């Protein structure tokens, strides 16, 4: 039963990662791209939590991974909003297609 629960939760995490990848690659709005990335990290958090609960509850490694994923999400949001604000202020750009010249 434990293994089945782990597999179900990890499948959910895989679905979140897949949905997030779709969103990050398909959306034009900068903030919507960030939402896709957040969904990917959401999947990572769920998978790491399940790994702790059903595989290695005696070891803290998976919990630390959840903590790191949470920090990654906070950093991504802060820097994403800063960049969105800076480019909007400079060029009134709010979609990734309008900033294609940044690709070099």
């Amino acid at each position, binding site marked *: *039963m*434990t*293994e089945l*629960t*782990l597999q*179900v*939760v*990890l*499948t*959910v*995490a*895989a*679905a*979140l*990662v*897949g*949905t997030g*990848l*779709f*969103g990050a*690659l*398909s*959306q034009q*709005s900068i*903030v*919507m791209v960030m*939402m896709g990335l957040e*969904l990917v990290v*959401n999947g990572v*958090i*769920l998978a790491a*939590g*399940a790994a*702790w*609960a*059903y*595989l290695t*509850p*005696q070891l*803290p490694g998976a*919990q*630390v991974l*959840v*903590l*790191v994923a*949470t920090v990654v*999400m*906070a*950093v991504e949001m*802060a*820097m994403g*909003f*800063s960049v*969105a*604000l*800076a480019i*909007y*202020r400079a060029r009134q750009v*709010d*979609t990734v297609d309008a900033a294609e010249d940044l690709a070099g």
Partner: protein
Amino acid sequence: MTELLVLAVLGAAAVCTGVLVFVVDSMARATFSLLASFLATGVALLLMDLAYLGLLTILMMTIEMAIMAVFMIMLMMNPAGLMPMTMVHNTRGSVVVGVVAFVVLTVGVWTVDWPDRPGPRPADATAQVGEAIMGDYMLVMIVVGVVLLATMVAGIALATHRGRYDRFGPDLDRDPDDPVRGGLPR
């Protein structure tokens, strides 16, 4: 069995609300849909006896999505979804990438021979992670601290309206044209 059922329901809720983010017209609704997905994940973590991390996810995401809703309304076109519109590019390629990632991960999940659970969960999972980041995993905590500090500095540098060169121009030796002079004595 009950735990499995509840986790499956929460997982289905997390995925459905996650998909809704990219389906609804309104960007404000998309933000709160994403919040619902995070709340489902947070409750799932609570069910796995991860009290601190589950609560952290719920509280942090609630605040984060509230900030995101403000940005949505401030910057984006059509935040309320009054005019149905889609702002997507390369939909087919994105669907393929998303589905392939899901299938590959799922095949891995169901074919790997997972090890048996080595023992019971500790009585206090929060104490376990607290002792870890203050002991064996302290390097992680140090790196996280530096990264967050760098993020704060970079965030302020990018988001402030004017920088050093707006005040001084290219000649850094002259006094800036501030309406009120800084420094002492005034």
